[in-house]
């Protein structure tokens, strides 16, 4: 279902596969008030029906604003956005009928019980009274909330609130479900529960658009991922294809100390070691409170990385430096982000 092609040039109204996109933005620009820069700066993508589409980027990348435009809560400065074929600016009421939104922070109605939260939501969306009650019970059961259906949201944990909000979103059977940072702040168990439910929804054919700054979440859930930074879409592909686009099949992180004038020569020497395809200098580890200044580098290696540890240590010694720490790994979406921006996701 998820093709490899990067669709950034489709003209308005044209889906890649010929079917109508579940959601799409074309040359989207948003600038807030007197802000000096665009929060979203010329973004184009289409989301296919049934697809789980992830927007990955650090806080402030423009993900939430993009979702805000698609969900009619943010007015675009320029460009076009559609959900289910409906233009969100020309027909916001029609667009709202196509979508459901699970926000980052709980916005449950605290005056109502969980069950009434679901039922009134459906009423706002014009679901008939009989269907409301039946669907509420089904969803409460599915999300493990039935025993507490009559409690008020104040007594719910973050994970439980998130479950309630997803159940609520499904009450009116939306064509596209938008989730803003669906598992931020949840404990690991709650997070896995939410992930499982989202996978169930995908199996049931519900199109999902989610934002996250967590690469594990993006990789775990999304069919395709758009990487955003500073309001721009830097890359868009399947997670595996994004990672494969990086040079090297394994990584070797080195921490070298003391950092001094010899570092630049050492980096050149390291990058010329056999099988090293690329070298990326990493930002200093904020947790590292070591007394001596150190430099962190990541080598992208074709083949096996462990064989490089000894030559790297020898090269460092030759320049009067020591190898303080090493870590072996395989490239991840975080490496894609580093490759594209020179920064880490946090």
């Amino acid at each position: 279902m998820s093709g490899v092609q990067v669709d950034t040039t489709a003209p308005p109204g044209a889906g890649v596969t010929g079917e109508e996109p579940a959601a799409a933005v074309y040359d989207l620009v948003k600038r807030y008030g007197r802000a000096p820069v665009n929060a979203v700066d010329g973004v184009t993508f289409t989301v296919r029906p049934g697809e789980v589409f992830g927007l990955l980027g650090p806080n402030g990348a423009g993900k939430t604003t993009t979702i805000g435009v698609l969900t009619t809560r943010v007015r675009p400065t320029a460009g076009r956005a559609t959900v289910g074929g409906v233009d969100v600016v020309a027909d916001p009421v029609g667009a709202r009928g196509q979508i459901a939104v699970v926000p980052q922070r709980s916005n449950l109605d605290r005056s109502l019980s969980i069950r009434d939260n679901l039922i009134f939501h459906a009423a706002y969306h014009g679901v008939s009274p009989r269907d409301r009650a039946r669907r509420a019970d089904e969803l409460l059961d599915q999300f493990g909330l039935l025993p507490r259906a009559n409690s008020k949201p104040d007594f719910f944990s973050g994970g439980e609130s998130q479950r309630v909000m997803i159940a609520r979103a499904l009450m009116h059977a939306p064509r596209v479900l938008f989730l803003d940072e669906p598992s931020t702040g949840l404990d690991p168990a709650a997070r896995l529960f939410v992930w499982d439910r989202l996978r169930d929804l995908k199996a049931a054919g519900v199109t999902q658009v989610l934002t996250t700054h967590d690469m594990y979440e993006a990789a775990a859930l999304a069919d395709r991922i758009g990487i955003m930074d500073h309001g721009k879409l830097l890359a868009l592909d399947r997670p595996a294809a994004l990672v494969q686009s990086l040079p090297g099949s394994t990584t070797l992180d080195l921490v070298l100390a003391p950092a001094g004038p010899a570092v630049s020569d050492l980096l050149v020497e390291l990058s010329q070691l056999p099988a090293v395809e690329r070298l990326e200098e990493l930002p200093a580890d904020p947790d590292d409170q070591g007394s001596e200044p150190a430099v962190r580098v990541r080598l992208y290696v074709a083949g096996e990385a462990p064989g490089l540890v000894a030559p790297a240590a020898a090269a460092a010694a030759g320049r009067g430096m020591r190898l303080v720490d090493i870590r072996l790994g395989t490239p991840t979406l975080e490496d894609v982000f580093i490759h594209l921006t020179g920064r880490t996701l946090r």
Partner: protein
Amino acid sequence: MLRRDVHVTAHDLPTFLAQVILQPLFLLFVFGKVLGSLGYTRGGYANLLFPGLVALTAVITGMQSLAFPLVAEFGWTMEIEDRLLAPMSTALVAAEKVLFATLRAITASVVMIPVGILVLGSIPWRWSALGLFAVIVILGSLLGAAMGLVIGTSVQPPQINIVFTLVFTPLLFTGSSQYPWPSLSRLPWFKVVTAMNPMTYVSEGLRAAMVPRVPHIEPWICVSVLVGSLLVLMTVGVRAFYRRAIT
């Protein structure tokens, strides 16, 4: 949406009644009963005060029913988001808020009648002026709701306390609810200040309906000023609502 608000209020009826009745009840009791019994006010004062307190109840209840919840919903509970995302015009969400606050205010004003009878023994009531009474109560309730809409959409949560002090208290005491406006001729500057408060026209309109012998502003002037103020406040309020709802 209206059903949601009614549902919540119905489940919380004692709180609602305490909220709307307590303040006018004490004002009525102290100014109408206690001061009268002690001889500090003249005999007719309670009759003059009662229409003013109905006006106060209508305006203040309308304002409180809208402003407080709206500041919270836009500011930190975000409860309103679910309604803003419903497939209906954003203006309708604002209209529902105004309608609900108005209904609460009308209810509270009507409740004042038995409360008045209970505290004062009798109230100045004229069946012949029922129409005017109803029109002014409805306009006063709408006025309160419109003020609430403006406050609720323009105030950030941290400012809420100071805004209520700066807006609420002056509004309470410059609205001619405790004195008839024409009698202020000896305090001309205060007469001007109170004329700027639209609540004055609610108080005066109700006096025209209930105690026409007390000098009052002509009903047609009251109605015109109230309709004009409503148009201005609603326009400002709905625009501000849109700005909060869609950035």
